[in-house]
């Protein structure tokens, strides 16, 4: 069916009260950014319940582009009939049913403009009987091949047969900010995506320990973040020079503890950077139980170093489900490029699955990590990854 307008429905925003308009404005902004190369090809009208995109010219790849904007529950590709006279609707319906494929249909009219002379059910009957008389289509109200939606509004009738599920969540940046610990593996990009979908503005922090980590990892991260810019148009990446601290951790840790101590140091550094950037929470790609440092006991001991909230969007996900999402969002093939993001040299043969806090404190009293942390924070490198084609 040809269409000349897109009806955009909001996600969970109906639960919002007075600040709903801020969310809607953010969603409108996301749409403008996503369609910025076509700004002359459509006209946006924001109403209290929907956003309408009136198309002036065809926009390539419109469905895909819209389905990658967070905060959108669904959208319909509709045709607007300026004069909603019943005969006009019938004439248009006949054209559509001649084009579409299928055997059974259902008409679903909604009369939003109550001044329209027919009630919804009357519209349904009138249109349906026209179709039944003139075509071989049959009615099936329970499981139709085609649903013909009609919305009568004060400015005309909107007709559509195709409604596409949106990405859901909240508009980009509408919920607040977080500092995401990004390794470059499979999990952290997926966690980043889930946060972005939920409307959280994500800034990333990566711990690099050259030469124990490969310089190829940074390229890889940039490629990952580039592929996530369709969900958040600008992403900041902070790279922490972690080598010295990492070496000290390794030298001083007892068997089984280096990873625990390393994670504690990473959380300390991330917390302080977050504070400096006025970002009120941290995030990570940890999934409960996946590896030794992600058991509940480990998370408890690691989390002890910070008192700001840590979002762990993947905490209950199985690895296969994480992989499925990473394939869907296109980060999987980048994540599996063969670069070490944490050198195996630091991985203990037998990592502790239930580390003890007092042991950690003992290890940390053996060296002056404070000055090393400050050195890390003083030598941060920052990269800005932006949306481009």
């Amino acid at each position, binding site marked *: 069916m040809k269409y000349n307008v897109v009806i955009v429905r909001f996600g969970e925003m109906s639960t919002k009260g007075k600040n709903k308009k801020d969310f809607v404005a953010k969603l409108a902004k996301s749409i403008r950014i996503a369609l910025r190369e076509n700004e002359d090809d459509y006209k946006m009208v924001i109403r209290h319940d929907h956003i309408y995109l009136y198309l002036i010219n065809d926009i390539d790849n419109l469905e895909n582009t819209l389905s990658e904007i967070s905060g959108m529950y669904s959208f319909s590709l509709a045709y607007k009939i300026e004069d909603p006279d019943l005969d006009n609707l019938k004439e248009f319906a006949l054209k559509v049913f001649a084009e579409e494929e299928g055997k059974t249909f259902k008409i679903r009219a909604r009369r939003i403009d109550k001044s329209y002379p027919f009630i919804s059910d009357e519209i349904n009957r009138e249109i349906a009987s026209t179709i039944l008389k003139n075509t071989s289509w049959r009615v099936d109200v329970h499981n139709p091949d085609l649903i013909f939606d009609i919305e009568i509004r004060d400015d005309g009738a909107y007709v559509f047969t195709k409604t596409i599920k949106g990405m859901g969540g909240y508009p980009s940046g509408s919920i607040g900010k977080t500092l995401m610990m990004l390794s470059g593996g499979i999990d952290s990009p997926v966690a980043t995506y889930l946060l972005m979908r939920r409307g959280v503005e994500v800034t990333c922090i990566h711990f690099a320990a*050259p*030469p*124990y*980590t*490969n*310089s190829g990892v940074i390229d890889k991260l940039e490629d990952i973040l580039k592929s996530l810019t369709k969900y958040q148009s600008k992403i900041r990446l902070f790279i922490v020079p972690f080598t010295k601290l990492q*070496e000290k951790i*390794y*030298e001083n840790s007892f068997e089984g503890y280096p990873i625990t101590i390393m994670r504690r140091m990473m959380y300390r550094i991330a917390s302080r950077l977050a504070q400096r950037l006025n970002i009120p929470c941290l995030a990570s790609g940890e999934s409960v139980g996946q590896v030794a440092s992600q058991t509940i006991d480990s998370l408890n001991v690691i989390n002890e170093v910070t008192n700001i909230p840590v979002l762990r969007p993947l905490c209950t996900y199985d690895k296969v489900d994480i992989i499925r999402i990473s394939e869907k969002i296109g980060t999987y093939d980048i994540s599996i490029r*063969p*670069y*070490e993001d944490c*050198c*195996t*040299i630091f991985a203990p043969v037998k990592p502790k699955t239930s580390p003890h806090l007092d042991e950690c404190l003992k290890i940390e009293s053996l060296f002056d990590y404070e000055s090393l942390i400050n050195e890390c924070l003083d030598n941060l490198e920052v990269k800005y990854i932006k949306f481009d084609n």
Partner: protein
Amino acid sequence: MIYFDNASSTKPSKEVLEAYINAASNNFENPNSIHKLGMKNFNEINRIRLRILKALNLDSEYEVIFNSGATESNNLGIIGYFNKNKNRGNHIITTKVEHDSVLEVFKYLENHGAKVTYLDINKDGEIDIDEFKKVISKDTILVSIMPVNNELGFALNIKDIKEITKNYPKCVLHLDCAQTVGKYPFDYSLGDMLTISGHKINGLKGSGALIKKKKINLEPLLYGGGQENNLRSGTLDYPGIVALCVALENTMKDFNQNYKNIQDLQGFLIEKLKNNPEISLNIFKNKTPFILNFNLKTKKASVVVEALSNEDIMVSSVSACNSKKESPSHVLLALGKNEEEAKNAIRLSFNKTNTLDEAKIFIEKFNKIIDSIIGRKL
């Protein structure tokens, strides 16, 4: 930048690039076309065949089959020979230290009816001739060996092998010379089939050849237009062939002088590295100076390679095609090293263009790196 990874690939020389660009711009016509420009290229390719044989001191008993490089040459030589001659016997022999493009081909044939023997190489980088005598038989139709090893640089006793295969008229000797040309003084006429590759000798990737005795019959791997005596269909890559010839002639022309220079360079490095407690050098009586391999005792090779790379010094841990997998080197394992040693070896490989000054800088940076990075807790 200091580039000590020339066994992976070398920088194409100016002469090679000029010859390539000239041929690609001015002689693009298909050498199999019968108009005068096609004929001209065709005739020139035939002259180049002779130049290539001459550069390797081979007579007209041999012929050149141009193709895409060493992997293809090894495949054609081994699979092509086996498929054509398996009615005469089904036993083939190679060593445990070959390049994957030979080993994987042997594994493939092993799954397709061949009886395969993989010869051991002893600690000194030699084939045990008595063992070889024992395994070779009337059923043996092919022996494939690389004269100079790509990872460790040791040179095998091909002459002794040849003495024995001579007594088996059905058996031909294939030599993968990708790492021999330009790296070691060698009598190429010992081989019945020889693999050469352009990009290992300052030529271009995608150019190489299988050189074989005319009397040896092969089954082609590719079917099509019937080029190269039906053995390698596909439009002849005239510019690539020109580039291969220029690279080979240049390499052979200055070989003696280059060999001596690199011997000095290697001598300097050995002198500086031999007393380093972190290192154990993998040195052999017969080896090319163009490849120097050593084991790290406590540090991780991949970390040292990365650290050197951050200092703009390019070296390699195991062979490049494998280096991202971090699997142990099959060559070091075959020589009796344990898994940890076989994982933590570094290969320096030189080109005639490398200098002693570069070696000095290397030693300085290398020592610093070894002192600064931490290793495995032992």
